[in-house]
């Protein structure tokens, strides 16, 4: 494990960089996915159509294609940003479709009567969603949302491969390709870095699930 121990500082900075990508993508995809899920159950037909089209398009497109569109397609039409911004945005867009569907399964698990009662006391559609339906939907959607986000954590490595640079995955690339270290120890170090993130997330999810569980 010498290559890892010799470059611990490099690994550490890569680990933090990856955490950054993951943090922004988690925040962005949850917000965007929630809005999309609300669209998909809204009484407005055009919003429903938009949500459905988004999910169909994005969910069925490989992540690498989405990232190519972001990093190389957008500059062609005059949109410029750093690879980091493009990468995170691409990952947010891609993950949002899965968040939307996981959350929609949670929304469907909320008894119809809850929304009816909310509407019956005069709450608007938006209030019904934010006050009554979504808080309950999130609780029952914690396990599938967890799976979606853990998949996103690992997908952040693909973003790293797109030249965002200096993330955990790129550290492996630098050490092997540029500095000639052996693959197995270097990649083992990278894998351990991701495992620290995903296993911690798994434990936190378990705690969250227990905390928000409600009797029905």
């Amino acid at each position: 494990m010498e290559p890892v121990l010799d470059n611990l500082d490099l690994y550490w900075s890569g680990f933090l960089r990856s955490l950054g990508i993951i943090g922004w993508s988690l925040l962005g995809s949850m917000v965007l996915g929630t809005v999309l899920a609300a669209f998909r159950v809204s009484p407005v037909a055009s919003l429903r159509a938009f949500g459905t089209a988004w999910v169909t398009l994005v969910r069925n497109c490989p992540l690498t294609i989405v990232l190519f569109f972001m990093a190389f397609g957008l500059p062609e039409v005059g949109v410029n940003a750093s690879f980091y911004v493009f990468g995170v945005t691409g990952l947010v867009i891609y993950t949002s479709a899965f968040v939307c569907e996981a959350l929609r399964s949670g929304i469907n698990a909320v008894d119809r009567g809850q929304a009816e009662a909310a509407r019956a006391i005069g709450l608007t559609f938006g209030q019904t969603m934010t006050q009554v339906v979504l808080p309950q939907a999130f609780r029952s959607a914690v396990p599938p949302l967890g799976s979606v986000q853990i998949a996103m954590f690992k997908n952040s490595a693909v973003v790293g491969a797109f030249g965002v640079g200096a993330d955990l995955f790129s550290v492996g690339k630098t050490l092997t390709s540029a500095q000639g270290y052996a693959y197995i120890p270097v990649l083992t170090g990278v894998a351990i870095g991701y495992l620290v993130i995903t296993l911690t997330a798994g434990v936190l999810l378990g705690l969250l699930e227990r905390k928000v569980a409600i009797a029905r």
Partner: protein
Amino acid sequence: MARTGRVWIVSGGMTTHRTAAEGGGSGEPLVVLDHVDKWYGDLHVLQDIELTVHRGEVVVVIGPSGSGKSTLCRAINRLEPIDQGTITLDGEPLPAEGKELAALRAEVGMVFQSFNLFAHKTILENVMLGPVKVRGIKKDAAEKRARELLDRVGVGHQAAKYPAQLSGGQQQRVAIARALAMEPKVMLFDEPTSALDPEMISEVLDVMVDLAERGMTMVVVTHEMGFARTAGDRVVFMADGAIVEEATPEQFFTNPQSDRAKDFLGKILQH
């Protein structure tokens, strides 16, 4: 258990269409359904419904399952949209989906068969949500009012609990308090006791009788014939999506006019 109700002074020669002035109401029309029709596919669930509920009146809707009585009740606050005809509340026609409809629903209290208390909120929060979010009332004022209402329906000491920790009868009384917190012009009850254990039915009916005595305008879909007799000003009997008969409770139960009503009463009063 004081199920006092209103004492019924019914003269023999009353017509089927009793005006509210003769009953509990002030005679002013509050809810008016005019030529209302609704279809589920080929099924004609509401057939040319004509119904006027006057201010202060208690209208009890009874009828066999699938007769359209719940649909009728739910149409009044547009939880079920209608296909033809008009429904007006206090002179205003029901608006289409949107902010205006939400504002109208705030004026119409609704109590469901399955209670539908917000499962993630405490009893107190359930009652406060509407006043705070819809009426914009300050939290401390809303809480004071909510506690008063919870005391009135006899569940004040349960305010900090969650709905699932209460019995069905308690939950339904909270649901009534939640609707009352909006100070509605009319209360709709969609089979409020049908999901309850027999011994819990009376505690909910007591609250409803009390409401009726305080002059609340009520539309009550129920199978509780005792309630219809004691608290109802008028009975509307529905079958197959149509209003078959309208009469005072006394007249309806002692001398039903239609064969359909005779058949229905014969079956339910048999045991």
